[in-house]
């Protein structure tokens, strides 16, 4: 069965458009949920909505389990320490490695002060299904930027779709919330969100509001935040 961009797709459907573009020698990128089979047909492998951005085709699908991909920023929990690595749980099938030297200013002598159970906001450096994922806490210039240990605050799990949604530039939620109260947020694409604010009551309220946003359409975000604001005045 052939499908077009914008359609609801099921595994086994064929995307003719991507195939014909490739035949015209144009560059086509197959993203999440698409693969080309042995006959060079583009076949859908996930259920969801077929989307296209420039020459990138992908399926927007529902997912809870994280599958590591290069350059994703994720929130990890330090599971154990060995001679050269931290082993970090990033909600995928195995522990990811985070070298001691992958921190800003770290040397063999000067090791980062991180303990088991700490939260780390980091980037996926390498993701090969045959190897364990590798994480870093610095960018290409060696600076730490936003990455690093997350102190205090509250981490909670959610679906990957929710993280994608709040990070979408069209989603006004985080911006609207910041007008009501100051807070810090780190959204890991592995289905984990960390927030921190001036007191725990506000933090919990923020968490509930963010979780509620999963099923709220964009145009109703304002109502959601208004409700948040009224509850905020109630507790403080």
């Amino acid at each position, binding site marked *: 069965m052939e499908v077009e961009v914008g359609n609801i797709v099921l595994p086994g459907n064929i995307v003719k458009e991507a195939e014909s573009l490739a035949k015209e020698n144009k560059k086509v990128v197959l993203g999440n949920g698409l693969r080309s089979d042995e006959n060079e047909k583009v076949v859908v492998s996930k259920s969801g909505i077929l989307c296209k951005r420039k020459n990138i085709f992908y399926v927007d699908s529902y997912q809870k389990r994280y599958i590591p991909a290069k350059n994703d920023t994720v929130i990890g929990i330090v599971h154990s320490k060995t001679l050269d690595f931290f082993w970090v749980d990033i909600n995928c*099938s195995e522990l990811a490695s985070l070298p001691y030297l992958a921190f800003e200013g770290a040397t063999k002598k000067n090791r980062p002060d991180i303990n088991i159970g700490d939260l780390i906001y980091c980037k996926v450096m390498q993701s090969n299904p045959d190897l364990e994922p590798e994480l870093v806490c610095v960018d290409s210039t060696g600076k730490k930027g936003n990455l690093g240990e997350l102190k205090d605050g509250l981490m909670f799990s959610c679906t990957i779709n929710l993280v994608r949604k709040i990070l979408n530039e069209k989603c006004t939620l985080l911006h609207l919330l910041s007008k009501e109260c100051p807070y810090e947020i780190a959204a890991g694409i592995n289905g984990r969100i960390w927030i921190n604010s001036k007191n725990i009551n506000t933090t919990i309220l923020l968490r509930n509001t963010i979780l509620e946003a999963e099923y709220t359409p964009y145009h109703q975000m304002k109502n959601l935040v208004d409700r948040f604001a009224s509850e905020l005045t109630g507790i403080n």
Partner: protein
Amino acid sequence: MEDLKLKAITAEMNILSRSDGSVIISQGDSSCIVDVNGPIEVNSAANIDMNKAYVDVLYRPKCGIPGVNERYKEKTIKGLCESIILTTLYPKTQINFQIQEMDDSSGIFACAINGCNIGLLNSGLEMKFNMAAVHCVLDETDEIIIDPDCIEEETLAFTRVQKPKRISGKYKADFTFVFESLKDSLISVHTNGSFSLQKYNEALKLSRQACRKIFDFYADLVKKCSVVYIKNSILEYI
């Protein structure tokens, strides 16, 4: 055939909050919960496969402890799931299925297979194609009934150790056919009772027509869920 009617199918995805994919499916009065988790860490070193994911299926009966009959179902479902999931994409991992039978008024096996497929769609694991199972029986007048409901299944006390369920004397045989969605071709058969080749082919032909309805149901279900989960996150398609 216009009067081909299946039992009412209903399914609700994402009913368990902590599993990666879950569904409660009911076909007529038969229903089960399927829970899919994966890819996760392989729990036993003996099962690590360097080339593909290891699929583990647990089938829990309505009451009592699982026995040999459940093992048989587990093995069949495992084989089917291995052939529809792109297991090579998830090497050295495990994909767990847990199926809890809720109510059985015939065709629970087909219901469980369909449930596994919906569970997989919900979990976001990459698949080659969909599968649909159709159950039908051959009654005493040699007539084929597709997807019957409320057949009295009697426990056959033929053996002490294993007590298989067997449809009562009114029915000669029952078939469970599993089809794939690309060409509607048959990927698995499971039969019970004795029958002739002609009747088998007849049942197969009818079931093949019926499986389309199940595939349509999957498409419908995914459509409904996509609207809720995904659609409002991409403004372009509102």
